[in-house]
C-alpha cells in the first residue's frame, strides 16, 4: 500500500436504528481516517457504538447518513450484492467466537471466501493451494483436514485468521479476537496479528483489554456513539524483548 490514500475514510458517519418517534442513534457523525498499514484498536463500553462502527466499516451494514470511502471507493450506498462482493474481496473478518463452519475442515473453511469470489474464478486445485498457503502462514500446515471440533480455541482462531487472509484483503477486522481464549492462546493470536501488521497488513481490532490495545499504534475510544479520544500509543510495535 504505497498510496497516500487512507484505507478507511469516514465522514460524519451515522447509524440510526428504528424509525419514527422511537429511534436510537448508535453512531453519531463519526469521522476517522485509517491509513494503509496501520494497526488500530477500538475501545469503548458496551453501547458505545463500536460494534456498529465495525459493522459499517466491514460493509455488513449501511450508514443512515454520512459517507464511507474504502480506499477511495464510496461504499456507503451500495446494494447487498455489491457489499457482499466487497466483503469477499477486500475485507477479512476475525470474530470472537471464530465463526467457522462446524462440518467443514480447516482447509474448506479457509477456501470459503474463494468460493464466492466472482472476480476471479479459480480452479478447485488452485483454491486448495491458496488455502494451504494461508494455513501454513498461520502455522497450521499440518491441520488442513481437521474439523473445528478437533482443534483448540487458539487453533480455530488461527484458521479464522487464515480465512480472513486468503483473499489478500485491504483490511482485516478483528472483533475481540482473544475474547474466548485463555491468556496463552490469546498471546499467540496477538503475536500473529502483530506479525501480520509488520508484514504490512491494515488491522482494525475491537478489544476490551487495555493492555492489548496499548500495543497497537492508535486506540480509538468511543462513547455514546461519538469518538471520545484517539490515543497514539507509545510503543506501536512490540519488540522481541518485550515479549519475554
Amino acid at each position: 500500500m504505497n498510496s497516500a490514500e487512507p484505507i478507511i475514510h469516514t465522514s460524519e458517519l451515522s447509524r440510526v436504528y428504528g424509525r419514527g418517534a422511537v429511534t436510537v442513534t448508535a453512531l453519531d457523525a463519526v469521522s476517522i481516517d485509517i491509513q494503509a498499514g496501520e494497526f488500530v484498536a477500538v475501545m469503548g463500553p458496551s453501547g458505545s457504538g463500536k460494534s456498529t462502527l465495525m459493522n459499517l466499516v466491514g460493509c455488513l451494514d449501511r450508514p443512515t447518513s454520512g459517507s464511507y470511502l474504502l480506499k477511495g471507493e464510496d461504499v456507503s450506498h451500495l446494494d447487498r450484492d455489491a457489499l457482499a462482493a466487497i466483503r469477499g474481496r477486500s475485507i477479512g473478518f476475525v470474530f470472537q467466537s471464530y465463526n467457522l463452519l462446524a462440518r467443514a475442515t480447516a482447509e474448506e473453511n479457509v477456501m470459503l471466501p474463494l468460493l464466492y469470489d466472482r472476480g476471479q474464478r479459480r480452479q478447485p486445485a488452485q483454491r486448495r493451494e491458496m488455502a494451504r498457503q494461508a494455513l501454513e502462514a498461520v502455522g497450521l500446515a499440518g491441520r488442513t483436514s481437521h474439523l473445528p471440533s478437533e482443534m483448540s480455541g487458539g487453533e480455530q482462531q488461527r484458521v479464522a485468521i487464515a480465512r480472513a487472509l486468503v483473499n489478500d484483503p485491504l483490511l482485516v477486522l478483528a472483533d475481540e479476537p482473544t475474547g474466548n481464549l485463555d491468556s496463552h492462546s490469546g498471546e499467540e493470536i496477538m503475536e500473529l496479528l502483530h506479525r501480520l501488521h509488520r508484514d504490512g497488513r491494515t488491522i482494525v481490532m475491537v478489544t476490551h483489554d487495555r493492555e492489548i490495545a496499548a500495543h497497537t499504534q492508535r486506540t480509538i475510544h468511543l462513547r455514546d456513539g461519538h469518538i471520545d479520544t484517539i490515543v497514539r500509543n507509545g510503543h506501536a510495535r512490540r519488540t522481541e524483548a518485550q515479549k519475554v
Partner: protein
Amino acid sequence: MDLRELLHLAWNSILANRMRSLLTMLGIIIGVAAVIVMVAVSAGTEATIEERITGLGSNLVFVTSGFSRGGPGRGVPNAGLKFDDAAAIADEVSGVVAVVVEQNAQETVEVGNVTVEQVEVLGTTPGFPSVREVKLASGRYFTDVEVERKTKLAVLGASLAQELFGPSDPIGQSVKVGNSDLTVIGVFAKRGMVSGVDFDARLYTPITVVFQKFTPREFARFLGNQVRVIYVKVADRATMDRTIEQIKLLLAKRHDVTLDAADFTVTTQDDIIQTQESATSAFRSLLAWVAGVSLIVGGIGIMNIMLVSVSERTREIGIRQSVGARPNDIRYQFLTEAILLSLFGGAIGVLAGAGGAVLFGAMSDMRTVVVPTSILLAFFSAAVVGVFFGYYPANRAAMLDPIEALRHE
C-alpha cells in the same frame, strides 16, 4: 459458486441429516409413485380395452338375455333368448351379414388316459369362425346341415388340442365329452384371451349337441333351447342403429314383451367401450387427485423442513455472507438442496411406483403397463414441487441480515 459446488454443498447437507432427509422425501415418494401406478393402471386398462375392441370382431351387435352387465358373457341368463330367435334375426332383419349363437356348458373331456376336467364346451353355429375372427389351423368347421342333424362333432382350441393329443394329429380321433363320444374335425389356431375368455382352451361343437347332450334335463324342460348370446354381424356400421332397432322390435314381438320391459339386451362394441372407458377415467381422475394431493403435501413437508434447516443454519448463513456470499448464492444453495431432495424423492418414487405397478399387475387381475413418459412427468413434477416449495425458505435465507445472522446462536 458454480453448479457443481452447489450440488456438492446440497449433497453434503442432505447426507448430514439422513433420517430427516428421508422423512422429508416421503411425501414426494408417495406422490410420484402414485402418479406412476396411476398411469400404469390406466394404460393397462386401455390396452385391455383396445384388445377387446379388436378381439370382439368388427361391426358386432350382441343380443343377450336379461339385462347386460357390461358385455357379452356376463348377461344374466334368466329369460328366454331362444335358438329360433337367431334364425328369425337372420331371416327378417335387413343389413345382417351373419348370426352366430352361443350356448356353453362345462364337461369333463377324456382321450385315452388323458382327462381334462371342467372344459368349457361352447355350442355355436357355422358362422362362428368368421364372426368371432378365429382361424382354423387344420381340418374344418361344422356346417348348417350338421347343426340341424345334431352330428356329434368337435373342433378343439389350440391349447386343448395340445393337452389332449400332444404332438399327434387329433383330426378324425374320438373324444369323450361327458357321456358322449365326439369326433374331432378341426383344430383352431391360437387366438388367446378375448374379453377374459381363453378361446384356446375351449371345445367347440354344434349348438344343437349342447342342447341335446350337455344341458341338464330338469333345466332343459324349462329352458328349452335357450341361448346365452346371439352375435349379429352387421354389413355397414352406418346403418347399425337401424339394424338394432329392427332386432329389438322383432324380439319384443316374438317374446310378447314391450321394449320398456324387454327380457333381452342389445349392445354394441361402442357401448362396451364407453362403459369401460368411463370406469377407467373415473379411476384415473381419482388417482390423479391422490397423486396431486400427496405431491402438495410432500412439497409442504419439504418447505417445512427447509424452514427448520434455514433457522438452524442461520449462523452458517451469516458466516457465508461475511466472507462474500451474495443473496443469490445463499438462495441457490437452499434451492438446490430443496430440488435435490425432491428429485431424490422422485427417483425413489419412480422405483417404488414402477415396482409397485409391476407387482400390482402380477398379483391382481388388473393389467398394468409402466409408461416411460409417466416417469418423465413424475420427475418433472417433483422438480417443480422442489422449486415451488423450496423458493420461500431459500428466499428467507437469502434475505437474512448478515449482522443478525452472525449474532444468532
